[in-house]
């Protein structure tokens, strides 16, 4: 299977701390690839490194066969990679509408269609169109963050812990959304909520102490109780 995104033996530091030791991931085109692992394993750093927000010290990162290692983040975004950060990255002083407009880099038939779809999917965004982003609830912020990444014709979406801090009913909504979005774009998802990851994921990688230690199809992971217990603490 052709890889849309490939990380080979990637090493990265945050200041003097060596966070990623050897991360190798291959994300095929289509579907959801899930990055699993305990807190502090290096999952968020992996996404940030792909996005160019952390420097790669060793190894390579290729997107559609092209080396993107250490390119500035705006170049990487321009190649068709959307990023939904862990803190949602909402611009609190801009209204919901402005948050969406800023994310929509060009307006054409396709993006207008996507915007209509997004507003249909998240009616709250339409309702609070003129409300400052900072005044939204956690769930609404997450919807806005996901909507922004989806508006552009991104081939790959990097989504970091979309269920974090959300009420179970909102998590269900986010899960449904990701399931719908995977029809349109490839998703690399970091998720601690195993139930959600299991529902939307097609394949997985487990990161432990900055290294990829295990990978496979999502349905295989459920059967492997030893791996689940050792790396995810689920028995």
């Amino acid at each position, binding site marked *: 299977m052709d890889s849309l995104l490939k990380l080979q033996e990637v090493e990265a530091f945050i200041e003097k701390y060596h966070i990623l030791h050897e991360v190798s991931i291959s994300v095929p085109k289509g579907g959801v690839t899930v990055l699993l692992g305990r807190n502090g394993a290096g999952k968020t750093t992996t996404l940030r490194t792909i996005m160019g927000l952390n420097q790669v010290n060793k190894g390579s990162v290729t997107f559609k066969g092209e080396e993107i290692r250490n390119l500035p983040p705006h170049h990487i975004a321009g190649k068709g990679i959307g990023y939904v950060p862990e803190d949602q*990255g909402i611009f609190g002083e801009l209204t919901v509408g402005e948050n969406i407009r800023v994310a929509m880099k060009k307006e054409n038939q396709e993006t207008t269609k996507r915007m209509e779809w997004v507003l249909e999917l998240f009616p709250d965004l339409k309702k609070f169109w003129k409300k400052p982003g900072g005044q939204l609830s956690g769930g609404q912020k997450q919807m806005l963050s996901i909507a922004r990444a989806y508006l552009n014709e991104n081939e790959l979406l990097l989504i970091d812990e979309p269920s974090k801090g959300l009420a179970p009913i909102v998590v269900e909504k986010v899960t449904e959304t990701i399931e719908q979005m995977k029809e349109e774009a490839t998703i690399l998802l970091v998720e601690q909520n195993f139930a959600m990851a299991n529902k939307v994921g097609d394949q997985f990688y487990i990161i432990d102490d900055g290294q990829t230690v295990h990978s496979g199809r999502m349905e295989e992971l459920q059967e492997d109780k030893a791996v689940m217990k050792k790396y995810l603490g689920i028995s």
Partner: protein
Amino acid sequence: MRLGNIDKTTWIYLGIALALFIVPFILTGRSAQFIMIQIFIFAIFAMSYDLLLGYTGIISFGHVMFFGIGAYSTAIFMDRLDASIGALVLAVAVAVILAAIVSFIVGMLTLRLKSHFYAMLTLGLAGLFLVVAEKWRPLTGGFDGFTFRVPDLLSTSESLYTLSLISLILIFFGLRRFTNSPFGKVLMTIRENEERTESLGYNVLHYKVIASVVSGVVASFAGVLYMLSLRFVDTSVFATDITIDVLLMTIIGGVGTLVGPILGAGLVELAHHWLSGLSDVHWIFERWIILYGTVYILVVIFFPLGIVGTIRKKMAKRTAVQARSIKK
């Protein structure tokens, strides 16, 4: 633009602008008109600072250098060439181009780094411009400065009042349009979260440099007007005190509001004038700068978002409460 499309706030601003045109007929004294002219000029300068600090989140400690570039360009051209409108247009063109080049270079050198590098480099460069102005006596007149004539058309305080007011109105509406445009919204996202803006696909450096250039050009134009009002230049136009003054005008009025710095300029200039004039009443007012500092501290404590920022916040809160009660 159709008249029907103009919003209520714009009508209010236009009404105030129109009222200001009538002021010279009421305040006929030269001194009062001079204070108003100074307010308009510093309002333009403070708005240029607000574009950097309030909209883009860039702190500059040497913004006065652009003001000084505009001031010296005007003074030198008026002095060396004849005091004609042609020479003035040439002076404005040189001031604007020089300010654009300097702000572009400073921006390219420092804006890829953290904001304090820009603050430090502008502070250093403003100091350098001050030293050059002091040492290059044949051109600048050094520390003593020199006087010069201005075109006859601008020799009365009424004409200068009108020019300053028209400039203020045009620059205010121009910057308002600029900050409300998609470009301006990107500047605001940079102020809020630079990394996030970059990962949305925007070249943050490119946006910051453009903001720095626009701000530098507007500040240099304020310097041009300042010279037309004083008809005298000396090295004080590069003094750090002026940067501190516009910083305070912006903070007191409300950062990121444009209208706030205009209000701030008015308050600071009037406070300067009023407090320094009280020295005849009591000797304590000879140390008026202490009172001035106290007023600043009180404003920062009671209006942390500036006057306009605090009013806007209160109004937004009230609207939200009203909306909730209607919903219930």
